[in-house]
């Protein structure tokens, strides 16, 4: 299929990009890597009048340190994330999840920021950003603002980004202390989206689990935290039984959909099993 015609803008700075988005009117689409947008346009499920391509905005690319946080440019590709030494050192969970995104070619084009701003609940990175308490740095006509991940994902394919705004970078707090991580993805074929996935980061202290952060992929219209499990794990013994007991509440507060691959009750079950496995692996059990 061939997309419907559109006007094309290719800014090279964030300021130019904001201007292009403003000039594009209501029917503008911002394109990062295009790996979800282009298929949707080919199927003519989206027919924007203007596409603003961020591909040449160099300042939105790359990973740097800023004190206790990593700052990941929104246009950093998945492939770049995978080979970035700072990510390997401070945000291994992101690398682990990114490795499972689509396939090699798609990871060459697809971007970290694009995946978050697209906010597909079946996408792997939103739950990771949520679990890591990432912050979204958003540029708009009136300057920049920062939105925590917990407020960024609003609904199915909907974020806190307002009209005219662009997600420019993501601040990911470095994990301090002895953290283990695991992204446990469940799908039917290798390149498919997650049916359910669980992003877990666990900090152990003296044979106990001091803190656990658990993000759930595809358990509702937005990524979710498994808050009940997190609470149950806080201070729990680092044992298989304790983890299993805590994981039983992983689906609390979720509202998964039913589709070809899974009905809601099965997704709830998977969330529990995968949470148990992810936490156990992250805790080194």
């Amino acid at each position: 299929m061939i997309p419907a015609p559109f006007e094309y803008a290719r800014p090279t700075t964030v300021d130019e990009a904001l201007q292009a988005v403003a000039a594009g009117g209501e029917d503008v689409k911002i394109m990062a890597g295009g790996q979800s947008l282009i298929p949707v346009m080919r199927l003519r499920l989206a027919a924007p009048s203007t596409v603003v391509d961020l591909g040449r905005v160099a300042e939105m690319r790359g990973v740097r340190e800023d004190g206790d946080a990593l700052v990941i440019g929104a246009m950093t590709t998945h492939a770049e994330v995978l080979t970035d030494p700072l990510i390997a050192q401070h945000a291994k969970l992101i690398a682990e999840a990114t490795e499972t995104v689509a396939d090699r070619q798609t990871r060459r084009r697809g971007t970290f920021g694009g995946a978050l701003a697209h906010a597909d609940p079946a996408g792997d990175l939103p739950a990771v950003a949520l679990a890591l308490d990432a912050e979204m740095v958003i540029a708009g006509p009136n300057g920049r603002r920062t939105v925590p991940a917990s407020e960024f994902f609003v609904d199915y394919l909907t974020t806190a980004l307002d009209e005219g705004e662009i997600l420019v970078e993501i601040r990911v707090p470095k994990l301090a202390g002895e953290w283990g991580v695991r992204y446990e993805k469940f799908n039917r074929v290798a390149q498919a989206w997650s049916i359910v996935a669980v992003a877990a980061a666990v900090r152990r202290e003296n044979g106990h689990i001091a803190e656990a952060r658990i993000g759930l992929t595809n358990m509702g219209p937005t990524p979710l935290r498994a808050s009940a499990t997190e609470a149950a794990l806080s201070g729990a013994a680092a044992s298989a039984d304790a983890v299993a007991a805590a994981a039983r509440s992983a689906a609390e507060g979720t509202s998964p959909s039913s589709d070809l691959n899974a009905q809601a009750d099965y997704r709830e079950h998977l969330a529990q099993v995968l949470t148990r496995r992810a936490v156990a692996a992250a805790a080194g059990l």
Partner: protein
Amino acid sequence: MTQVSMRVDGVTYTDEVEPRTLLVHHLREALGKVGTVVGCDTSNCGACTVHLDGQAVKSCTVFAVQADGAEVTTIEGIGSAGDLHPVQKAFHEMHGLQCGYCTPGMIMASIDLLKENPNPSETEVREGIEGNLCRCTGYQNIVRAVQQAAGEMAGRSDTLGAQA
């Protein structure tokens, strides 16, 4: 219409394109690079894989305007009948193709994989080409071909030379 200029298989082309033109359609229809094919519309099959500035991408999921100024390599640019790329040669030797429709994309993805991982295990090859669908071969001979090419590219070309 937007002007785009790109170097494809060593030749520079400058054309006016509609922004909505997919790179693969530009390659096929404007430049006659019909060796690269389209197999789906959801970026699943990988038949359209080319190298964009040295990296494997699905050319059905890139607009031609995005490749403005870029270097594109297609299946037509990596070797010729008398001078095959080791991966092409290995696909032939190991019977890594039947109908051949997925083959250009498979070969381009495999070259990309080997650049990153020159000595992949069977599992690494299988995962490395997960973005390319083949309906004929059951993949086993493709996996063999990629591993065979890896061996040759790692410097066993002298042995082959002696045999030839």
